[in-house]
């Protein structure tokens, strides 16, 4: 049987983490090809909707990465991201979805190696969690509900 290959969505801020991911490339630091990166201006841009949507669509993991605290290109965006995600994680806990499916990490523009390591770790973690069955079940409920309506 083929090994489970998770799909992971990464929201990366343009200024630090996306640049760090680029540096991983320039430096040829290898990592598993499971992640799909979506560039956003700032980690503060992340709306809960994005994470919900990704999980609803069947993403097995979601990464949000921005500048280290104090380094935000927009002064304070990453602080908002941090606060909002802390709350969102509680919501995940409440719904019974493993919190490990969501990861917030700070990656700077000079941390190419760290980015590669981070993605490798997340991919491994998510592999361990297995397929995103939890949300699939939720999705099924919702769809059934909609159909009934």
């Amino acid at each position, binding site marked *: 049987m083929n090994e489970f*290959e998770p*799909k992971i*969505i990464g929201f990366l801020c*343009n*200024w*630090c983490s*996306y*640049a760090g*991911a*680029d*540096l*991983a*490339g*320039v*430096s*040829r*630091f*290898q*990592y*598993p*090809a*499971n992640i*799909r*990166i*979506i*560039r*956003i*201006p*700032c980690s*503060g*841009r*992340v*709306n809960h*909707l*994005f994470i919900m*949507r*990704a999980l609803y*669509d*069947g*993403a097995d993991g979601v990464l949000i990465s921005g*500048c*280290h605290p*104090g*380094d935000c*290109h*927009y*002064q*304070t*965006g990453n602080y*908002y*991201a941090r606060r*909002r995600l802390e709350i969102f994680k509680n919501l995940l806990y409440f719904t019974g979805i493993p919190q490990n499916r969501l990861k917030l990490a700070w990656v*700077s*523009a*000079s*941390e*190419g*190696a*760290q980015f*590669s390591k981070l993605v490798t770790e997340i991919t491994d973690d998510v592999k361990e969690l297995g397929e995103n069955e939890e949300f699939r079940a939720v999705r099924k409920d919702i769809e059934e509900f909609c159909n009934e309506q």
Partner: protein
Amino acid sequence: METINNKAVGKVLVVGGGVAGVQASLDLAYGGFKVYLLESKDAIGGVMSQLDKTFPTNDCAMCILSPKLVEVGSNPNIELLTRSKIVKVEGASPHFKVTVLREPRYVDISACKGCGDCANACPVNIVNDYEESLTYRKAIFRRYEQAVPSAFGITKYGMSPCRTACPIHVNAQGYIALISKGEYENALSLIREVNPFPGITGRICTRPCEEACSRAKVEESIAIDLLKRYVSDKEKITGNKWNIEKPSYNGKDIAIIGSGPAGLLAAYDLSRKGYGVTVFERMPEIGGMLRYGIPPYRLPREVLNEDLNILNELGVTFKVNNSIDNTLFNDLKDKFNAVFIAVGACKSRKMNIPGEDLPNVIGATDFLKNALTGEIKEFTGSAAVVGGGNAAIDAARTLLRLGAGKVEIIYRRTRAEMPANNEEIEEAIQEGIIFNYLRTPVEISKKRESLILKIQEMKLGEPDSSGRRRPVPVEDSFEDKEFDMVVMAVSQEPEIEPFKELSVEKGLLKVDPLTLETNIKGVFAGGDAVTGPATYIEALAAGRKGAVSIDRYLRGEDLRTNREKEGPYKEELDVETKGVEKKDRAKPVLLIKEKLKGDFSEVNKGLKEEDVLEEAKRCLNCGGCSECMECVRACEPKAINHDMKASEEILDVGSIILAPGFDEVNVSKYTQYGCGIFKNVVTSIQFERILSASGPYGGVIKRPGDLKHPRKIAFIQCVGSRDKINEHCSSVCCMYATKEAVIAKEHSHDVEPTIFYIDIRSFGKDFDRYIDRAKNEYGIRYIKSRVAGVTEMKDGSLKLRYETDDGILNNEIFDIVVLSVGLNPPDNIKELSNILDVELNKSGFIETLPFNIISSTKNGIVAAGASTGPRDIPESVTGGSAAAQIASSIIASERGKEIVKKVLPPEIDVTGEKPRVGVFVCHCGLNIGSVVDVKSVAEYVKNLPYVIYSETNLYTCSSDTQEKIKEKVKEYNLNRVVVASCTPRTHEPLFQDTIREAGLNRFLFEMANIRDQDSWVHQNDKEGATEKAKDLVKAAVARVVDRTPLAIQLLPITKRGLVIGGGIAGMNAALSLAEEGFETYLIEKDSELGGNAKFIHYMLDGSSVDSYLSELKNKVLNNSLINVRLNANIDSIEGYVGNYKTTLSTGEAIEHGVVIVSTGAIESEIKSFMYGKSERIITQREFEEKLYRNEFTEPMNVVMVQCVESRNKEHPYCSRICCQEAIKNAIKIKENSPQSEVYILYRDIRTYGLNELYYKKARELGIIFINYDEDCLPEVTLDGENVFVSVRDALLRRDLILNPDLLVLSAGITAEPGNENLSKFLKVPLNEDKFFLEAHVKLRPVEFATDGVFLAGLAHSPLTIEESIVQARAAAGKASIILSKEGIEAGGKVAEVNERNCVGCGVCESVCAYGAIKLEEKKIFGELKKVSSVNPSLCKGCGACAGGCRSNAIDISGFSNEEIVDAIDAILEPI
């Protein structure tokens, strides 16, 4: 000489691409001027690019710098000139003519895609200077990964010594480099480019290359011959064959007489040029001495034949058994177009001693010829060989193989002088040949069947012309020896009888040494026949020289030009061998046999396979690039050109900004600390690289000596600062050392940093807080002590000797020592100052004008950054902006005249159209194409909704593809474009420009990053990478489909400035704005301009503040563009950038576009130290006033106390200027009356930068400095008129009681109380100490996050007068950029409110860092409610609002919720 007109030019030259130069360039380009940014290195970024973090915010240096570098790289009005320097400057302000020397990069910047394939292929490792020698890089390199320009460049130091020493310049370094990579075939090809006989050369060459080899300085030269031989032999094993193209016959014929090495190489060269070549040889086979002089055990005949076979393949005709006589020679002369005589010197010379003609006395050449042709088959007797060259050894060893019982070599000098190869001698000894040194035969006689050799003893005398000591006969020391044969191997000479018509000198043919022409036209001669016996390689060189001459002769070209570098020469390369680890030279396999008779098999079997790579790796790569051409082979876009030459360019500019930065102090002078000697002693900048995530250890703290993790780290401060060599203080070291200690601690908690310092100079904004945190939160240990010395322990750890607080000499062991090296003027500053005619100051930095530390002494040339004295990053950035302001004010009339203005077609209206997407998928050479199946990606996207067209491109960013994209937009009526290639961070603007040129809105574009974030990181997962690429492109298509054209509006600007505060900073800001041509209102709450400067009368350097101030006031009051409002306060400020309306307390309303806050600060009020209780206790400011009024006529006893009510819990910062002020006034009084006694009680003396020189002067004048501790403050008591100050001297550890005539208290600086109000009006923040807080401490020091509001002077933080002026000019420069625009750009990727959904909760307003959102009452569908309103000119599009909106009412164009959700859907929908 052409005269230079004096008309201003709207262009500026910025020298130096560090952060100061970068800032100046950006400001000028945005302000409407063309900029040339000149950088000596390959990339801009300066030292800041090397830093890990910055103090006091611990920002990642690269994160904040890199976007600026990208901005520079993509700005059409900044032209980057890398590897360049100024060589000449003519003209004067405002029109300079600057000659710039541009060194070749060897890579075409516009063609290079920055993929790095070249560096992967490059076999040459050289020390990486960017990584501060901690690691190696390739000869073709990019300075750092994020470098701008991103193109690679090649380091060439010059031609390597091995190559220049070789008479035919075989690129030894090149083929050794290739061998070190295992590229044997390419190595062989490289050899054959100049030498077609590698098998022969690898065996018999005398190797002048090895004599020149730099590796010999370490232990022994590289075994160049054996490496060459290895690749040649390898070819025979692999069966590869050299395929050489046979050129077509050019109709001309050449005769070559003699088929020795000279003749053969001439034949080779000429036949490759298309000549018909016929070689005449009198022996039955070709090869000359190679065949008839060198025995097969040294040069196996199959090797010889195989190497020479190439000549047959080239179609050379050989006429063997063809002796040339005079008739034949003359015949050849007539029949052939040219003749080359290369007959060699094969006649043995005689010694002219009695008995030389006896039978069995034979010349070496004849003997060898006879033995090698089989004429002599056996010889079993004893033989003497006279001579010490290779021919003697060859003869002797051949004799053994013929069966000789005993062979003795008789040589007149010692072994050291023997010309034969050392290996040959060694092997001969091992084979049993007897060597009899310091002997010479004087007579040979016959005795029965034998020969009697009479031998005289010799001794070494004075050196002769060859440098070897001349043998001198020892009188009466004769000896007779009996032999059966005597071989005379003394020397040889040519047979010149056939060439009667040619000039002859000393038995040799006479030719022009440069061209080898003889006295007969068309006849050339070379090799041993001309020079006398020489080496094989010299004969090859002669053959080549002859071929060049003959070719030029037959083409009718000049024979003499550009021939200086033919033949060996010495290139003076500075090859550093210090620290190179010793590694033995590889030894060949020798087959020394006991029984040699009849065995001519090869003795030296060459190197073992396993030794080859290691031997090649011993090469020191003396020349840098080895020119092995691996990079050229690897480079897909063909961007590399090794033949690029340096060129000169003349630039016309209106002014020049100097920002060449600094060079770190050369620590090798500080031997007491062991830098460069002990491996675990590093410089601070090395440690910076060690800490860096992208540094040599990936951010893991290791020490270079053994890569172990150090626990105890010692920082030694003031290395190369505040000493006899460099008297200045380097200003930044205390802070960067603290930062490095803190970051080290953050990296791994177990490290224990200790900082050894003299004074802690944390004088900047929020610096003291940083030090406090380092001490209290991170536990960094600070020891006030100069380290006496460092010694290395056995395990590489380091023992520091220093005096402790208790005065005890202590020894402490650390794992690593970091030297906080100082900042020196750049190494080339003298040269630069001479060319530009600017003066340097005493410390060697660029001299500046009083009150203007930005302007050099030459009109029109400004200077910024650390080249004018030690500066930290914000000071450099501020200086850069201020310099740009001064430079632009000189040429303000030319604003906008030299910049690129593209004429664009009108935008096509696509509203209402169905999306029609074109997708362009890039191969990027092999960078993407070798991993991602780009064809299948392009096929796949064709089936996606709305995709009309897709294609793949080799390089999507190339200019021809840009044209193609435009064509396809037209052809297919595309209204949206997706490019799948590299990163949008660098390439999005390029493609956006392209589609805009095609008539599409810039925002109808999206990129998929399938290189940096796909092919490069999944090199081993082609399938996964291809799937990922499909997903990424699909997501990009989904996003672009959702996109609507975004408009950028230009809102009108009120082109008028408002400056709040009429002190030095405010007045300078107003004047600067006026210089730029903008009307300005200057608001002062007082009744008089001048601010705090009214209380200061003179500067540390003696300049008069009074006269400066009155001049400044006059300028301001008389400037028609400046409206001064005195006795005025601000009642309200409304509006936003470009459109402000301010109401003054006087009722006046002013409309303006920008605001500069320069409200100053106040002197702190003193409550302690009995201030106010006695007339003898006064503040420093009061003291200055009294000094100024000459109130002190008698010598006095003065005590000054520093840090009064400062740097404590209530006032936790340093006021920066008090130390200088105290020293200024102390020097003044001491100079006025030398009998006065002055005591300065201090905590740390903070005379940073060049002010340190005045601290030194103060000490020299006898001013006494007493150090006290924070927790042991001086105490003041009054006894009637008497003031007593008791203080504990923290250094001498004793209590003192002073009884001064005057106690002077240095009060600190406190923020202006009005700041809080103003900060509310302007919605800009204050820091904890109530000073204004700038947008970014490092890179935006005079701006606020809110556009259009700027900051200067004491409102920012405590500063000196000069520093305030720099800030004022920088702020005014920034403000001018806005005022000079046509309009305020608003729109694009900014926030938009859906007012129907908005509930007016105000979350967005509260999270917006830019004050761009406000709640406004509006009528929405007839209902009056509060809704958010976005000011698009202030919005930065960060999306913090959209991330937090609960009612989905606010969104970001270009990053909309819909777009991102659709991208997510696209990715996760199963393919």
